[in-house]
């Protein structure tokens, strides 16, 4: 059965391709009255093919556009609705996109006043690149051998609902989610191959930089089962929910340090004082030894909990809501971080002393009690108030052990194992009162306010890892912790007329977090005082029925102060951030057969910490003075997006759309490379897309898109650039 989309409204519907690049070309209304509207099929199948001819970095293309560089084809969308009887409807949804590895199968059966059953399976792929960093001084570029990384996420679910009239309503839901594959990591390995001089005293600059790529091998499973019953007793709706949840994760990060480098042991064996001069005479490729890290985090959890809630209508003006919940989580941890040299020595490839641990074991337990009470009070027709209080008590305990493997001798000839153990305990209580007000007593004006204040107090105790054979106990840390978090919002919406709507909002987040040592830690003190405040302003202007624009401005300033433990030290300004965002959007519908839209977003965002104001590191006998301000610059996150979109009715059965987009983030400064890493983002992406949609017959629709993309990344030496055309075609048929 085919239902016309709208008998008198032709909405220029430009296809829903799976690729992000075309996302902006989706539904936008030239809400023109035409009788030849594209049909909106109730049951249909949509066959799709897409292809790209990209030059440059395929992996960056995949990561950025979320589609495979090799293209793909298949069933993008299958939707079948079957009316089994007057009260029973069956719905089937499907998708099978080869290449993108995007699949869906779903069945839903719903019977009015009885309930429903819904089950299905879906799977999709996300792409990542394995490109790591780039060192500009000598144009050093070390991508992974396989840059084509991806993660597949899949989910099976089944849920049933029984909702008989005037009876308790039951729901059961089970989900099983899997996540597997490889993705890139922001933790990078070291290299001396930077073109920087060896740090021969008094040169303070080390040649070592961290820019060799790494990746994480993901293997995760998450199962959840939830059962609930809801029943209405007089004026009260009561709901009881039970849930059980398990995770079984086994992730490993692979990092390569100093790839391609081999340290000459004879030189490493020299006395420390003699090493710099000796190493300086050695070719850079021989400065360090290639090392492999495989950091494994295996993590299993079992969670169980229950929630009881009620919602009571006390009077036409007053509602009371109560919630209570309990949750218990057990985790079991295992893993290790073996770090081995690649170069064979007299003992073969050996573990090295730095940050190497193996045989991690242990677990944690969390108990959480939560309760809340909320009153919704409609004082008058135009004044609404909500008063609420939330309380929470949380207990966490954890312990772990592992073995450090250390190598001694040069070359390493002896390995030593040292067992280590640590534990922690946290108990904290929090209360959060909340107030919300909404007033609509002034014509065309709505004023609202919300404020909450979370206060927490608790205790944290832990030991750093220690050798339990040689030490009686670890270094015990005992701290009182406290939080005082205030969050406030005040805003108004004013619809002056059909031509003008104004919205404004002020917001403030004022948080204090403190940790005060006691027992063996008397004197420890840490206070973080943070304040974020700002406002949002939006104007929607419709000058004529054909032309309008929307202006939006957001301003946010952030400040943080840290007070440390040292006596007589002041509170330092640790953060000063500024964020300005301006958005502008113009809409023009000159007639019933076309529309134009222009969009622009400008963001100015800078994060300034105390470090760049630190000054100059003074010279010593072995170190030249250098300007530490250059080690860390402000973190700028400025960017611009520009978009132009238009749609045209070509004739009774054909629509056309044209779209152009530009994104630019120019915050990179490769000049910093000699002093720091990384050195910002400098990306520019432009695209143009043209789309045609054609009604072949009453039951067939065709859609074609052709786009061209050009992406540049200056701070990556051009190795992540890509450009080229992308094409998409689809055929949609009513069933």
């Amino acid at each position, binding site marked *: 059965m085919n239902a016309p989309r709208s008998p008198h409204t032709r909405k220029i519907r430009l296809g829903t391709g799976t690729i992000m690049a075309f*996302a902006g070309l989706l539904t936008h209304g030239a809400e023109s009255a035409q009788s030849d509207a594209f049909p909106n099929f109730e049951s249909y199948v949509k066959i799709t093919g897409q292809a790209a001819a990209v030059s440059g970095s395929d992996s960056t293309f995949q990561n950025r556009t979320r589609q495979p560089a090799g293209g793909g084809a298949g069933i993008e969308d299958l939707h079948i609705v079957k009316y089994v009887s007057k009260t029973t409807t069956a719905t089937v949804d499907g998708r099978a996109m080869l290449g993108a590895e995007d699949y869906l199968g779903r069945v839903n059966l719903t019977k009015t006043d009885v309930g429903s059953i819904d089950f299905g399976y879906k799977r*999709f792929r996300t792409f990542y690149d394995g490109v790591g960093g780039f060192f500009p001084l000598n144009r050093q570029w070390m991508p992974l051998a396989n840059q084509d990384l991806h993660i597949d996420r899949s989910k099976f679910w089944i849920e049933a609902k029984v909702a008989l009239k005037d009876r308790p309503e039951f729901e059961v839901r089970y989900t099983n989610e899997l996540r597997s594959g490889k993705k890139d990591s*922001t*933790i*990078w390995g070291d290299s001396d191959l930077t073109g920087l001089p060896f740090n021969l005293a008094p040169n303070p*600059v*080390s040649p070592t*930089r961290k820019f060799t790529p790494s990746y994480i091998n993901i293997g*995760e499973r998450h199962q959840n089962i939830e059962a609930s019953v809801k029943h209405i007793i007089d004026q009260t709706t009561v709901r009881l929910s039970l849930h059980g949840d398990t995770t079984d994760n086994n992730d490993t990060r692979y*990092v390569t340090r100093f790839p391609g480098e081999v340290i000459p042991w004879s030189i490493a064996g020299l006395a420390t004082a003699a090493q710099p001069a000796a190493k300086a005479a050695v070719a850079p490729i021989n400065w360090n030894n290639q090392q492999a890290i495989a950091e494994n*985090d295996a*993590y299993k*959890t079992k969670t169980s909990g229950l929630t009881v809630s009620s919602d009571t209508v006390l009077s036409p003006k007053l509602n009371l809501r109560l*919630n209570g919940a309990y949750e218990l*989580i057990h985790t079991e941890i295992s893993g290790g*971080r073996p770090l081995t040299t690649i170069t064979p020595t007299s003992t073969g490839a050996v573990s090295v002393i730095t940050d190497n*641990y193996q045989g991690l074991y242990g677990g*944690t337990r969390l108990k959480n009690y939560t309760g809340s009470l909320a009153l919704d009070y409609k004082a008058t027709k135009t004044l609404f108030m909500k008063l*609420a209080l*939330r309380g929470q008590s949380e207990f966490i305990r*954890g*312990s*772990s052990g592992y073995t450090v493997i250390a190598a001694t001798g040069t070359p390493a000839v002896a390995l030593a194992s040292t067992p280590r153990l*640590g*534990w*922690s305990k*946290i108990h904290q209580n929090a209360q959060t009162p*909340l107030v919300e007000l909404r007033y609509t007593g002034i014509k065309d004006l709505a004023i609202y306010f*919300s404020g909450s204040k979370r206060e927490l107090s608790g205790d944290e105790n*832990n030991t*750093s*890892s220690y050798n339990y054979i040689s030490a009686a106990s670890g270094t015990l*840390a005992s701290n009182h912790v406290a939080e005082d978090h205030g969050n406030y919002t005040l805003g108004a919406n004013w619809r002056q007329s059909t031509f003008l709507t104004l919205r404004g909002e002020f917001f403030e987040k004022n948080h204090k977090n403190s*940790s005060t040592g006691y027992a063996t830690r008397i004197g*420890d003190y*840490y206070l973080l005082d943070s304040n974020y405040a700002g406002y949002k302003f939006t104007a929607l202007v419709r000058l004529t029925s054909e032309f309008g624009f929307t202006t939006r401005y957001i301003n946010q300033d952030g400040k943080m102060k*840290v*007070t*440390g433990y*040292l006596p007589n*030290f002041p509170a330092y300004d*640790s*953060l000063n*951030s500024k964020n300005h965002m301006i958005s502008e959007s113009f809409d023009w519908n000159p007639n019933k057969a076309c529309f134009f839209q222009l969009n622009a977003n400008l963001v100015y965002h800078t*994060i300034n*910490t105390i*470090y760049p104001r*630190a*000054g100059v*590191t*003074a010279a010593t006998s072995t170190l030249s003075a250098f300007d*530490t301000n250059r*080690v*860390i610059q*402000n*973190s700028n*996150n400025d960017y611009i997006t520009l978009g132009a979109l238009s749609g045209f009715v070509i004739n009774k059965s054909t629509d056309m759309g044209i779209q152009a987009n530009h994104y630019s983030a120019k915050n990179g400064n490769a000049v910093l490379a000699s002093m*720091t*890493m990384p050195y910002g983002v400098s*990306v520019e992406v432009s695209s143009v897309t043209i789309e045609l949609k054609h009604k072949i017959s009453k039951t067939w629709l065709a859609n074609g898109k052709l786009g061209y993309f050009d992406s540049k990344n200056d701070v990556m030496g051009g190795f992540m650039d890509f450009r080229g055309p992308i094409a998409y075609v689809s055929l949609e048929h009513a069933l």
Partner: protein
Amino acid sequence: MNGKMSCGDCHEPHSGNAIAGTGVDLEGMNATCTKCHTQQKGPFVYEHAAMKEGCVSCHNPHGSINPKMLVARDANLCLRCHLEAPDAGSSGQINANAIRHTSENHNSRLMQGTCWSAGCHEQPHGSNASYHFRN
């Protein structure tokens, strides 16, 4: 995750501040993230207090110019709370004057990479092996 998530996965437009699970509801804001990112949920043996401020302290869920939707890609991300301040007692060296009596001079390390990417504090979501969130 473009196209695979929608606003409704995290936001409840008809309640309160429009973030699923906050206010006086029973779940915390982080729960909207950890329902999918289970590896970062914990509890860990050594919890990072920054998680109390929420995942959004370091990640912008609506998107960022930085990888992993980070608010900042460099060490400023950490230095907002863990400042490195001049310490008169160390001849102009830059030392941390907060967080457990640390007086390490991080200059040379920060030249090589960020706090977490340089192979040191690799587990910012919480660690099962080190109080310092080291590897």
